[in-house]
């Protein structure tokens, strides 16, 4: 099938402001948008810049806005867009460095702020710490996060203030808060109970729609709010 792809372009060494460029080509309906970008780069314009690595939706490198929605370019097939016109733009809310590459540092800074690591100060047992299947299931959904930033950069609260810790960081906090082996839930809840914490979420659900891992992001945020309100972790 023939498609036209319109790509956001910005070369900081040449351009004063961003522009868009269009390319028309034949593709297979089952091609990934990433394949299309690779083809454009390889054949039309080697300066086109974007991040990518695993190419199958696991590493989180190539989150971008495709036809107005945050998605992974490698997990979006042309046919699934139901259109011969494709528009590709960088994630919103983060500074554009070049073309589709944005500055991820504020995103990772927010991630680092929620104690994103397992804390248990008891002496380590000789074997594994036991955990029931039910207790493990409690936080299963939020272990899937690949830190692609699709959720955080779809959130109007984050657009209006980059200091908002954002859905991805709350998902990470959730993964530890509800892990029966972890001992630092109270500290994380305290962090999320501040001005730029969990209450900046206005339950808009953009994050849940954007998540390429189908994590129930808004639900996870709700559970953190609930834990703050009740002081309970169930």
């Amino acid at each position: 099938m023939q498609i036209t792809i319109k790509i956001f372009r910005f070369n900081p060494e040449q351009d004063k402001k961003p522009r868009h460029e269009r390319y028309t080509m034949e593709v297979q309906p089952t091609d990934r948008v990433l394949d299309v970008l690779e083809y454009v780069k390889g054949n039309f314009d080697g300066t086109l810049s974007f991040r990518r690595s695993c190419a199958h939706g696991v590493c989180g490198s190539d989150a971008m806005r495709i036809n107005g929605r945050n998605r992974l370019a490698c997990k979006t097939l042309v046919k699934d867009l139901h259109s011969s016109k494709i528009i590709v733009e960088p994630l919103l809310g983060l500074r554009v460095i070049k073309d589709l590459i944005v500055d991820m540092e504020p995103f990772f800074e927010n991630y680092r702020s929620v104690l994103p690591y397992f804390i248990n100060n008891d002496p380590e047992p000789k074997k594994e710490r036991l955990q029931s299947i039910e207790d493990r299931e409690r936080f299963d959904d939020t272990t899937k996060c690949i830190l692609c930033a699709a959720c955080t950069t779809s959130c109007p609260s984050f657009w209006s203030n980059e200091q908002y810790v954002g859905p991805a960081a709350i998902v990470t906090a959730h993964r530890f808060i509800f892990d029966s082996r972890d001992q630092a839930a109270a500290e994380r809840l305290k962090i999320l109970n501040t001005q730029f914490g969990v209450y900046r979420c206005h339950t808009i659900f953009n994050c849940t729609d954007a998540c390429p891992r189908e994590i129930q992001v808004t639900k996870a945020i709700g559970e953190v709010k609930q834990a703050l309100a009740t002081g309970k972790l169930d």
Partner: protein
Amino acid sequence: MSNYHQFDVLVVGGGGAGLMAALYASRTASTAVLSKLYPTRSHTGTAQGGVGAALGNIEEDHAEWHTFDSVKGSDYLGDQDAIEFMCYEAIDAVYELEHYGLPFSRTPDGRIAQRPFGGHTNNITGKSVSRACYAADRTGHMILQTLYQQCIKNQVRFYDEFQVVDLLLVDGVAAGVIAIELLTGELHTFHAKSVVFATGGHGRIWEITSNAYAFSGDGVAITLRRGIPAEDMEFFQFHPTGIYKLGILITEGVRGEGGVLINGIGERFMPRYAPKVKDLASRDVISRSIYLEIREGRGVNGENYIYLDMRPEVVNKFAAEDGRKRPDGTPYIVTGEELLSKLPDIVDFARTYLGVDPVTQPMPIQPTAHYAMGGIPTTKYGEVLIDEQNTVMPGLYAAGEVACVSVHGANRLGTNSLLDLIVFGKHSGLRAAEYASEAALPKLPADPTDFTRQQFDAIRNAQGSEKVFDIAREMKTIMSDNVGVFRTELGMSEALEKVRELQARLKQAPLTDKGKIFNTELINTWEVGNLLDLAEVTTVSALARKESRGGHAREDYPNRDDANWLKHSLAWLENGQIRLGYKPVTITKWQPKERVY
């Protein structure tokens, strides 16, 4: 920021091995991780099915059995002392990950869940044993996330999106690396006492591959250019079950949970090739069986693929035929829901990329280039070896897929790659820090970035009408066709000629991006050069090895030849030529015998 940095230990690569090395090295030494990707983008995160360790949580198991299975799986080319070391270390290594918070799936009694995997057996009955410790079908993702989190906790210093492009050696000792900061295009000199390479593999040589774009063989290419040999490069694993045409991995865990391979006439064919463990034979055996089925006209619809079938009714039918039981002795019966909960990502991949729901339809699959058994030669502590006499290069270490210890020999068992990362990542980090505590900081060369500038100026100034995109595609095609699952003298000679032609053509591929900031075209071109160099070394090593062993299957030499070829190959790059040498395999307890599954 100054472009000069000094540390005790540098870790190159932010995947499982690099992060593990950094965790251990940073306990006692100033340590930095340099990664071309944000570490959580590393390829470790795509590993699915599990990490091997004889915990015995489901049924009787022993590290000794794991050792023997790995020796046999390696087709006796693995070094038995190193394999034994890895398999005995495995148990504590997995508990350590659990202590770091890794969310393993659990057994009903709350212990780490385990599932069967190819080539892992009960050594008495010969039947499959549940040895793969898993977190659903995203075990690698959980290892990568957990180790990255621990690095944050321990305040490890990261240089993200720094592409290492050269290794500095002074008087035969490692002295640091040169890296390009992708954000600015600036060259940085990292000066250190120890350097640990953990840069992963090079599956992007082949067209159908499970490997990330990042897997461009940087570590081996850099060290080859600095006179360090590459070991056993002819051995590359083709995983039996990649998604048709795309190569995306479908974990062996699918077969561990009871999935079976079905050919175009609806037959479960593996029992003809591996009567005992059938669909859980080791990967080289299954990939060859699939090829033979397709070649004999039994592909599906006459095409180059067969089915991987995990529909519950099919799983249950064959489990009953095989007499498979649950640990409590009841017959093995699965439901769609159970498969979905144990293999959620697989279901997602099949739906996204194949438009197939694997609970109700079989998945079209074909073998996919997956894992480098070969790489930078090391001891079991990650120390890099530079010759046939196993001379250690002071200050230089390698771990993970980039290294060749050799624990995988001619064919790696599933789950042993994640195990390799954590065990050898740890020990290389420990050794690197220990060495740094005693060694003086080596002097830097007079002009440390000289060699890098030469290479990159050549890329930037190339003139001609070639396209890197076409060169990469032609390499992948010829390597897939001629240096794949089955190989011949004629086919490989053609491939070698083609690869050399492509190396010459790459010098005539001009860049359109003349900028500095995120010049991904520049980096990609350099990476394609790395892949071509590794394709050449792979093919030269494979042409020389006139036998079939593990992942190296020659139609003109179909048998294993222990009398002449029970040895590791070493390849050096010298003045643009490849020189081969050999060194013996370490055999402790198990003399080679015929390999039957």
